[in-house]
């Protein structure tokens, strides 16, 4: 039988694993799924199903407004959300306008993402034309005032702002995207893809149209409150939200099959089988699994160490 001192010693050892070892383990386990993708079963969250279903319910030719407030610091999650959102919009021929209130770099990152997805969806050629099918309006440093202006008079809020068109620089409010847009209510949704606190700025000020958010993982608890109250019509949260969207794009909702996604709230909603639906969600979700597993194991190890240490005293 082990003596009390040896139990305490083991406990102490378990409590003081060297930091470099922990870092190395995390690095290795996070890298492995990126090298060898692991298909994982998934049950999309109701909030993600709502997000997808509302996009799929939009009539073709509808217009939506996107507030893109992410940059590459959260590209693992936000870029995946943006990719999935853009794929659905382009497949449904929905025009969109993009603006930013969170970060000066965000419009450029959004512009590059749109161009990339447009090429991928168009089989190498851009499916969506700048200015004709989408406009990138730019960055507004005063997020609060600008968002209130967007709600008050969306044309006045964006008046004077220009974007690249086939004939040079032109005012965004003259673009085909703004045809028939006289009020924010003419945009079917305002979707905020964000990794910062712009979600609350929008939530507090936008009253004339429906809201949906695509947020980073750490922002999910805060935004679940607004989804639960019905203020948000749909919510994508972190890499799980991305994987949910990719699952939904592949299988749709309530479509019979081995991977059927069920929802009592909706009838049959088609997916886009055969198209390039997998992306960052499929690539990174396994990495999230193994990283969380390491985290849980580390916490358990530390606690076991603490108990052994106490027992051995």
């Amino acid at each position, binding site marked *: 039988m082990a003596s009390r001192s040896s139990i305490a010693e083991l406990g102490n050892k378990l409590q003081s694993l060297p*930091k470099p070892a*922990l*870092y190395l383990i*995390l690095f290795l386990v*996070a890298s492995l799924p990126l090298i060898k993708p692991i298909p994982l079963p*998934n*049950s999309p969250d109701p909030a993600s199903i709502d997000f997808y279903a509302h996009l799929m319910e939009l009539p073709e030719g509808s217009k939506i407004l996107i507030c893109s407030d992410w*940059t*590459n*610091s*959260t590209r*693992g999650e936000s870029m995946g959300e943006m990719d999935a959102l853009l794929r659905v919009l382009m497949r449904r021929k929905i025009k969109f306008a993009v603006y930013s209130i969170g970060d*000066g770099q965000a419009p*450029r*990152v959004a*512009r*590059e993402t749109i*161009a990339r997805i447009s*090429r991928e969806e168009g089989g190498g050629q*851009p499916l969506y034309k*700048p200015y004709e099918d989408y406009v990138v309006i730019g960055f*507004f*440093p*005063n997020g609060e*005032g*600008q968002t*209130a*202006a967007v709600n*008050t*008079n969306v044309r*006045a*809020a964006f*008046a*004077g702002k*220009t974007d*690249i*068109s*086939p004939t*040079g*620089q032109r*005012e965004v409010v003259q673009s085909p995207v703004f045809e028939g847009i006289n009020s924010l209510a003419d945009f079917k949704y305002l979707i905020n893809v964000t990794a910062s606190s712009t979600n609350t700025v929008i939530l507090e000020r936008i009253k004339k149209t429906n809201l949906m958010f695509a947020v980073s*993982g750490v922002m999910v*608890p*805060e935004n679940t*409150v607004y989804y*639960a109250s019905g203020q948000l019509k749909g919510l994508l949260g972190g890499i*799980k939200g991305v*994987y949910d969207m990719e699952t939904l794009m592949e299988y749709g909702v309530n479509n019979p099959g081995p991977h059927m996604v069920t929802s009592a709230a909706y009838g049959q909603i088609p997916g886009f089988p055969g198209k390039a639906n997998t992306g960052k969600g499929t690539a990174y979700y396994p990495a*999230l699994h193994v*990283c*969380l597993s*390491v*985290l*849980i194991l*580390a*916490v358990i*190890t*530390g*606690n076991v160490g*603490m108990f052994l240490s106490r027992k051995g005293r």
Partner: protein
Amino acid sequence: MLPIFADLDPHTIWNAPSGSIELVIKCMVALLLGAAFVGICFAIPSQLRRFIIFTATFVSGGFYILFYYFPAPIARQPLDQPRNVLEGFSFWLTDAQPIIATISNTIGSFLIGLGIYSLMRVHLRKLMKKQKDWGYSLVLFVSMLLMVTFGYWDYFDRFGKDGAAMAAGPAGGAWHFQQYANDILFDGFFQQMEAGMFSMVAFYILSAAYRAFRARSIEATILLATALVVMLSVMGAVVYQWDEGIKALAHNDPGSFLNNFKLDVIAAWLKDAVQTPSIRGIDFGVGIGLLAMGLRLWLNLDKTGGAV
């Protein structure tokens, strides 16, 4: 009401067609007037300066208070006319807000200039006097210069008449040296470093959780168990296996009590019954605090930060 702060179309004193000479002249005049105003503010006594800042803050805050609390027109159509003075004021507030927002956006943009000025002042001094770590200041200046040069060079090309072809990327063949240079600097270096910085958080979280997340008390144990359930609930593979196990135990009966022990059901209960009310409570507290802070700033009761 006066057309000031209202109606962008037709154009008023506050705007002009995009890219026009009129707009450039207005911008230059505004810049000169702004610089003169800042110069005057430096020259006048601090008491008077404080009064100017208080007045500007009070008027700006007052506008937004009126904008949010004064009854706004409902379902107003573009050709609607106010029927009395109060309605006229309400219409004016609504029309003026986007213009006020544009003005505050413009002022906000100048903060970037202020930041650059401050940064250059500190690092230029360090570089000139060759103080400790002056090499980092040199790197900062070189990086800033390169980014500004190639950023603007690329910007003017992209927003020129051939900009649409450039937006398609290098495959379109319209890229020149400045586009490639800007791409390497922004996407190749800057964005990757930003992503790298953020990814390091994972290592710190692991280390901190391992050392600090201990079941030392009843409260800590509850927190630990809850965190464990929530973490497991975002792991699809674990949820799937666990829930399949519960389904088998319940003999696939949807009315079975055992279904309450599915991982996604437990996680949903935690979110709906524990997390949501807690966050709502915190939000109310934060809201009241912000209201108090806003009032202090608006009424110039906040004396911290030294004399202005």
